[in-house]
């Protein structure tokens, strides 16, 4: 087969549907990555527009053109859009597009999940934009502190739009995170060891793990606040044992890692692009990866630095202040490793490098002011002033937007196969840099002079007039610069000048393909034995195109790739992907219907949506046909089994990472419960869970027996074990129903509300485990499992163990503490 014929056959297999239908049913990572990026940049434009409105309003004392309420919608939506609808999805899009190419494979682990995540993002983001256009946007600031956002002070639907829309979008972040974790660990080119991975993959892995552990606290907080708003469970109402501080803790447990979730991928771009610009490998690969991991760990111990002014005990302040200072250490290691790389090589001043210089000149200042606000007394003064707004933009704009633009220009030839003709990008870079610093240096200053953030206008006699005008002018220069980048990219799309393949002479596998990148990435999969595969073997692209690697023979119209061992990259199994499908967009729409049901308090719609989700998910996971046992040739003289027939199939890995998020959610719930118990006002509650010994014994007894039964049952025997396990799940569910019968009314006190949420969480997982077992039994009876039996059982066992664990632990947590009272 010639290279061209191979290309045509593979392209036909991997192509999305022709015409307008394509985007709606595509599951290909290149398509979806591009769609993510384009959508994220659209939201960036909307967020930027809002920023311009904010700066126009504050340009001078007379400039105010909207009222206070509208202004609060502006800044709330600006922050929300930038954080949730631009920064995170832009990372997801970049990772989704690039990772399989960098890792030398053909797609991500779960293509339909990628598509589902994308549509959740679009629908959730759409809800927020609808609210903005309808004048119903949230107005509590991007961290939405209750009680200001609670039912008493914000009964309108605006707040619900935030809670529902953001949670919807977070589903997409979790989906992408699971996807990235499994893909980086299991979907690489044969032979690529973990230690040989491109450094961007390390950053993506660390970031994805942080999303899995960082987002659940916010989802929990949103659920609790929505429960308070919809059903009156008083989690944040001090009169009934709730506490605003609970929200603040949960929010910042998410909010601080969020900052690193945004910065780390950008650092990954720097670590990838900068060495290429300097024509030398990155200095201290291991140190840089270690620094990223250290940052991830440290960043979970910092959240309290957003609460230094809430009046915490002194020791707590000192500890969190120390941790917040220390976090600058790994950042310092990275920055100096990058500069050292430049010294090691011969850096040029190509356009991506210019944006990287912009990054250094901005981010370093953001880091320095970050260390300043980590010092508690100083934070007491500048907290909630324009100084902090300025600091956060130095970090987020400097640490994310500049590297993103560097990456954009660096990978543009890969996206389009073209090179730029006009040199608009250089001028744009200068304008963005100057505009940015004028805008935000001024805001530091005026913050020190006492200007609070989030005020809708400035007083003429405040002495801040000139500074604000300067800042606004800078803002508009910045906006012009950003608009010029857009023009540059559009011109680039219009004017067709072919780029060479690998124009930067990079060492990365993503350049070992024709440009623009074809949907299947590699005509055959490379064998990798080096961290710099393209430099180690410059002939690689040609060899792959000739089909000399793995899976060079397209067969039966199947989308195929290889699964490898996580550590050393030995090929382990053959993966056959599902093809184009409208299932993801349908499932996302039905999920959206359930969310709209909550938004409008139409409970029938919620019920309908949830049943739809269950039905579609069932359909999704139903095996199309039994998997054959025999090994299949994958090129050379290697033959491998199908991935479904492994003891730990991809679905097991996906489940495991999803459960990491789930367990974090549960841990956050336990934290909240304990926090209210110890800190919130108006405890103890008027009524405890009835401490009658028989009920307690029955509850705990049933619960523990159920948990043990469920966990042990599945492992024992194929048929009898399942029965035992189902009985265990049922016993646990009964114990929870018993508890619910005795619990005081949920709206009476935060304690009772917490019991309800615990019960809901446990019952949900018990039901989920039961459904999975049912599916397993039916699929088995219909003969749909074949060689996939052991793997399917392993997945069901994982979920059952988890359900049994949280079911039993939850019971103990509910029953035991009232005994001490």
């Amino acid at each position, binding site marked *: 087969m010639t290279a061209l014929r191979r290309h045509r056959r593979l392209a036909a297999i991997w192509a999305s549907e022709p015409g307008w239908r394509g985007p709606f049913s595509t599951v290909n990572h290149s398509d979806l990555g591009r769609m993510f990026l384009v959508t994220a940049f659209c939201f960036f434009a909307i967020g930027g527009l809002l920023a311009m409105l904010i700066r126009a309003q504050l340009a001078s004392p007379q400039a105010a053109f909207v009222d206070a309420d509208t202004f609060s919608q502006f800044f709330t939506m600006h922050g929300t859009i930038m954080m949730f609808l631009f920064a995170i999805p832009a990372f997801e899009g970049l990772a989704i597009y690039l990772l399989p190419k960098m890792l030398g494979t053909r797609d991500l682990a779960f293509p339909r999940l990628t598509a589902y995540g994308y549509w959740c993002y679009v629908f959730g983001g759409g809800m927020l934009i609808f609210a903005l256009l309808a004048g119903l946007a949230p107005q509590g600031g991007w961290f939405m502190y209750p009680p200001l956002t609670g039912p008493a*002070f914000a009964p309108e639907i605006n707040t619900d739009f935030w809670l529902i829309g953001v949670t919807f979008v977070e589903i997409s972040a979790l989906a992408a995170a699971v996807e990235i974790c499994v893909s980086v660990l299991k979907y690489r080119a044969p032979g690529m060891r973990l230690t040989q991975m491109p450094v961007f993959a390390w950053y993506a892995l660390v970031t994805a793990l942080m999303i899995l552990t960082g987002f659940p606290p916010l989802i929990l907080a949103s659920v609790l606040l929505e429960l308070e708003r919809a059903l009156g469970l008083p989690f944040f109402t001090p009169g009934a044992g709730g506490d605003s501080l609970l929200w603040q803790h949960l929010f910042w447990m998410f909010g601080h890692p969020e900052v690193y979730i945004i910065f780390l991928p950008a650092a990954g771009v720097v670590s990838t692009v900068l060495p290429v610009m300097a024509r030398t490998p990155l200095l201290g690969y291991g140190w840089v990866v270690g620094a990223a991991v250290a940052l991830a760990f440290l960043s979970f111990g910092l959240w309290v630095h957003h609460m230094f*002014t809430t009046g915490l005990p002194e020791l707590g302040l000192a500890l969190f202040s120390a941790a917040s200072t220390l976090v600058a250490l790994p950042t310092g290691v990275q920055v100096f490793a990058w500069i050292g790389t430049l010294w090691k090589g011969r850096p040029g001043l190509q356009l991506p490098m210019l944006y990287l210089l912009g990054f250094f000149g901005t981010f370093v200042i953001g880091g320095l002011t970050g260390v300043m606000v980590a010092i508690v*007394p100083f934070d*007491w003064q500048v*907290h909630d*002033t324009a100084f902090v707004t300025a600091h956060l933009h130095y970090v987020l704009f400097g640490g994310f937007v500049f590297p993103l633009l560097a990456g954009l220009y660096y990978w543009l030839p890969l996206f389009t196969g073209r090179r730029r003709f006009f040199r608009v990008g250089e001028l744009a870079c200068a304008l963005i840099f100057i505009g940015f610093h004028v805008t935000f240096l001024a805001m530091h200053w005026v913050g020190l002079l006492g200007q609070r953030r989030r005020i809708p206008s400035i007083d003429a006699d405040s002495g801040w007039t000139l500074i604000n005008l300067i800042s606004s002018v800078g803002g508009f220069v910045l906006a012009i610069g950003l608009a010029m980048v857009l023009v540059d990219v559009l011109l680039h799309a219009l004017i067709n000048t072919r780029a060479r393949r690998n124009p930067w002479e990079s060492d990365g596998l993503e350049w070992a393909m024709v440009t623009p990148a074809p949907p299947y990435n590699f005509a055959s999969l490379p064998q990798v034995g080096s961290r710099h595969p393209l430099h180690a073997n410059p002939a690689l692209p040609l060899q792959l195109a000739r089909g000399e690697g793995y899976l060079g023979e397209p067969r039966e119209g199947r989308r195929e790739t290889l699964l490898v061992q996580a550590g050393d990259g030995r090929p382990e199994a053959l993966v056959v992907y599902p093809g184009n499908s409208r299932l993801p967009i349908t499932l996302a729409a039905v999920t959206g219907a359930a969310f709209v049901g909550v938004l409008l308090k139409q409970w029938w719609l919620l019920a309908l949506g949830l049943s739809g989700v269950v039905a579609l998910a069932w359909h999704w996971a139903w095996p199309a046909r039994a998997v054959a046992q025999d090994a299949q040739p994958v090129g050379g003289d290697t033959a491998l089994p199908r991935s479904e027939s492994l003891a730990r199939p991809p679905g097991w890995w996906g489940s495991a990472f999803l459960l990491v998020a789930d367990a974090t959610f549960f841990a956050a719930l336990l934290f909240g419960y304990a926090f209210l118990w110890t800190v919130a006002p108006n405890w103890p509650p008027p009524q405890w869970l009835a401490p009658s010994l028989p009920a307690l014994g029955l509850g705990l007894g049933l619960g523990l027996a159920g948990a043990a039964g469920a966990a042990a049952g599945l492992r024992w025997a194929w048929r009898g074990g399942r029965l035992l396990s189902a009985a265990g799940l049922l016993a646990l569910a009964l114990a929870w129903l018993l508890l619910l019968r005795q619990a005081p009314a949920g709206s009476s006190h935060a304690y009772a509300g917490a019991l309800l949420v615990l019960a809901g969480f446990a019952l949900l997982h018990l039901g989920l485990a039961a459904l999975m077992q049912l599916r397993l039994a039916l699929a088995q009876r219909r003969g749909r499992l074949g060689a996939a039996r052991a793997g399917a059982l392993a997945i069901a066992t994982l979920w059952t163990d988890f359900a049994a664990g949280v079911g039993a632990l939850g019971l103990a947590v509910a029953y035991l503490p009232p005994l001490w009272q």
Partner: protein
Amino acid sequence: MALAGCTGALSTLDPAGPAAAAIAELWWVMLGGAVLIFALVMVLLAGAFRQRPPPEADEARLLRVWVGGLGLAFTLTVLLALFAYGLWVGAQLKPAASAQVVQVQAEARRWSWRFRYADRPGYSSENLLHIPAGRPVDVAIRSADVVHSFWVPRLAGKLDATPGHVKVLRIEAAQPGRYAGQSAEFSGPGYLDHRFTVLAHDAAGWQAFLAGEGP
């Protein structure tokens, strides 16, 4: 230390009390350090682009210099020094017990402040807090509705008024006079005008206030 461009009724850089003064000094020290570090990084960055002989390829040495020396040792030293200094300033700001301390209460609601005085029971004032100059004052801060924050920038840092909690902030004005205060936690449409004034009396004025004379 009042530089031109640093003054203003709400300026943290124009301190009029010991706490604000200590923090302003902290700021100037940190600013100096930050400027030096930033300049160093920029010089190092620029140095990479100068004309020079083919760079050395001794990875181990480069790692020692850039990661070990600059990345770890230099960064850690700066951070430790700064953190110790921050702790020291924090310790200075710690409210010391003293018979001199005046007790007042501040209750925030949307959008006003009500102040009560331990030494003048039954009396309360709205949006005007009376204190004696030159004596430490403990303000017990609470909220009647949403989260607010008590902040008199020229006197001290801020402390939140969280519903259901009472927290105490120490303030002190060195000289008699009027000091502007504002709430510094967004609280809805009236947030801009959620302000108050601190009126620091001289000794005689304070006695007159306690005796129920004047405003």
